């Protein structure tokens, strides 16, 4: 009875007392009102770890399907990155990337955790898995993948949902060209850069009077690579005899290779990747293309986008073949060495270029959060845009603000004739300086879209 009376007797004085007590308790208890914290944002966003002691990242890689081995390597790199971010292990590139605000205590003091998804190298499966990670697991960032078709699909989804996407291995010009997105970032190089990097080497090695025949994987990446390589080789005086599109996963390419024999071409350019490249290259060599003399010159095969895993798949056929890669484990700069050392000690073999790009992407995202002082994606994006850094392999690198493409040195490599070990399959012919592969940001069109969605 008396309690009822008390509650009814509310005065201005008791309300003031109550408010003061609540604020005091909140301050002591640690749940600060938002207006007391530096860089606090009243706006909510997806993936906000809030007051939790940890932050989740989503690693979306091909765990099944034709690129599963590549996906497995990406996942290894991500796990290593998480270790280093949380202050475990030897720190890897945390010791070499400059500038860097990461301290080895997670991101913004929160422990880094992760969830994984399977892209299956299919756009719909990749989107579904990214969506699940965003909605169910509340990830602050999605990263991974090893196909441009998948990267563009997931990037579109992340833009719609307002979650940052740090692309894995994707080489199509479209990813940061006509399909660029405000929430999508690519550290890997692209087809245009491959063309610019390899053309001068092709000129030195094979001369200016050459006739090229292209076999091209029939999807976004293949088309942009064919276009870029064709333009770059025609620039050094080569003639393009024919460009033939082949279905992805054709398996037996013999019916596309036999017409090359009588086409008058003296160079075959294979715009294939992964399993397709392994098959087409092996078969081209079986058809004696590399023993052939055409127009008084040795017939040559070029694979513009090369990787160690593919060289392993093609075996002897890859020996002596020229191509480009984003990065290679034999680089001797401190960043590459630190990464190869951590990775090698952890797993017993060196990382692939896919592993490298995924590792660097994770650290760059974490660092941008640290610089922004928040996980709010629009603030993190602003830190990544125009970010200049060094010590991650490939020399000084710029994350260009206009299209979210990284600009750095590109490697021209050749299949090694006498490999010293199981993974010593490529030799770096030339580290092409960044200035040679740069291009205007509006060259491929595209719009980034808004910061806030």
């Amino acid at each position, binding site marked *: 009875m008396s309690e009822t009376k008390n509650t009814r007797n509310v005065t201005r004085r008791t309300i003031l007392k109550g408010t003061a007590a609540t604020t005091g308790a909140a301050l002591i208890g640690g749940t600060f009102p938002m207006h007391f914290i530096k860089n606090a944002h009243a706006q909510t966003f997806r993936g906000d770890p809030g007051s939790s002691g940890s932050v989740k990242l989503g690693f979306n890689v091909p765990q*099944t*399907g*034709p*690129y*599963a*081995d590549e996906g497995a390597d990406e996942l290894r790199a991500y796990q290593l990155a998480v270790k280093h971010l949380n202050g475990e292990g030897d720190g890897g590139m945390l010791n070499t990337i400059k500038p860097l605000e990461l301290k080895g205590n997670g991101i913004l003091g929160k422990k880094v955790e992760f969830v994984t998804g399977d892209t299956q190298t299919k756009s719909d499966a990749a989107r579904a898995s990214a969506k699940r990670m965003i909605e169910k697991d509340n990830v602050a960032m999605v990263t991974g993948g090893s196909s441009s078709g998948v990267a563009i699909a997931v990037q579109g989804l992340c833009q719609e949902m307002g979650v940052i996407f740090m692309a894995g291995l994707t080489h199509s010009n479209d990813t940061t060209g006509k399909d660029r997105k405000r929430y999508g970032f690519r550290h890997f190089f692209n087809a245009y850069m491959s063309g610019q990097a390899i053309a001068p080497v092709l000129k030195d090695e094979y001369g200016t009077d050459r006739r090229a025949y292209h076999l091209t994987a029939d999807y976004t990446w293949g088309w942009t690579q064919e276009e870029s390589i064709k333009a770059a080789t025609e620039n050094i005086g080569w003639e393009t005899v*024919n460009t*033939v599109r082949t*279905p992805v*996963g054709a*398996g*037996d390419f*013999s*019916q*596309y290779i*036999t*017409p090359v*024999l*009588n086409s008058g071409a003296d160079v075959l350019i294979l715009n294939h990747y992964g*399993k397709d490249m*392994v*098959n087409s290259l*092996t*078969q081209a060599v*079986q*058809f*004696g293309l590399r*023993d*052939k003399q055409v127009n008084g010159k040795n017939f040559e095969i070029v694979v513009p986008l090369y990787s160690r*895993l593919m060289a*392993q*798949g*093609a*075996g*002897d*056929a890859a020996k002596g073949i020229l191509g480009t890669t984003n990065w290679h*484990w034999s680089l001797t700069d401190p960043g590459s*060495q630190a990464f*190869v*050392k951590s990775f*090698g*000690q952890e797993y*017993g*073999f*060196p990382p692939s270029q896919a592993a490298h790009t995924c590792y660097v992407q994770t650290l760059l995202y974490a660092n941008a959060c640290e610089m922004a002082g928040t996980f709010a994606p629009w603030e993190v994006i602003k830190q990544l845009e125009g970010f200049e850094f060094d010590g991650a392999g490939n020399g000084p690198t710029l994350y260009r603000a206009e299209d979210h493409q990284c600009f750095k040195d590109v490697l021209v490599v050749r299949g090694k004739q006498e490999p*010293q*070990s*199981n*993974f*010593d399959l490529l030799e770096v012919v030339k580290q092409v300086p960044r200035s040679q592969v740069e291009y205007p940001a509006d060259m491929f069109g595209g719009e980034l879209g808004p910061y806030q969605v």
Partner: protein
Amino acid sequence: MDAIFLQILNGLDKGGAYALIALGLTLVFGTLGVVNFAHGAIFMMGAFCAVTLEKILTLSVRVKDESVTFFDAYKETPYLEVWFGETGKAIIDWSVPLSIILAIPVMLLIGIVMERSLIRYFYKRPHAEQILVTFGLAIVLQELVKSFFGANPIPQGAPDIVAGSAAIGAVFGLGESVVYPWWRLIYLAFSLLTIGLVFSFLHFTTYGMVVRAGMADRETVELLGINIERRFTIVFGIAAVVAGLAGVMYTPVLPPDYHLGMDFLVLSFVVVVVGGMGSLPGAVLAGFLLGILQSFSSMTEVKDIFPGIDQIIIYLVAVVILLTRPRGLMGRRGVMES
């Protein structure tokens, strides 16, 4: 002219593989009445017999690789090379042909086990159920192979002596640029030989004659006191061996991965349907026919007129043939018709 000649060879070569797979498929269908969607997986497992033998032959001694300084790395030298020197090297070089010796008993066993433990329970069940269970089996087999060998293709070299290409143009009075890989020529010869052997077995041996009689009229053969079921089990094993050997020999042409079987499965079914369900000569004829058509449709000259024709030609032909000859090229009345 040169180009046409090469595409014919290409087509025959592809056709050889299609025919070998389709032959086993239609043999199983004709004898057991089972639509076997796991037949592609059997082809794939044959290919992995070659991979397995190569892995065994190249079992290596691990020596620390001093050239890698960043971390502990190891170099491998096969024991065979350590023990037998050049002879060891030669054995490794010939691993694909040697795999045939391994593949015959292994594939026969796999076929018989598969039939006895699973397939036989589905003889009397509808075709739809047979398709579901064999398709499931195919997925299980390919996932098993993936978990052992990984997802990436594993290259297998032909022996050095036949690794290059033959200047076949000179033999036929064509230009010098007409060359064709030796191994593909061997594959063609091998597929013709195997097809010949299967037909001889069915036509010139008593065992084969009984099997054919069983295919035509199972009940009567059983009434004569012959255990036709056991013979059909053997036939299933033989079909597995044929597909398995086709797989072994195909490895230098196409580095095998776990998905190889699925890539061939649909095509082989089209071959069987075009040839006529249950008809062995039909399967062989359709295999070569579709192989050649596929090769020709990939020629630039043809693709310029009909873009994308190379990817649909097989299905287009299947539609036309089924519309004009619903039983396929050499199909018999009463097969898969109720």
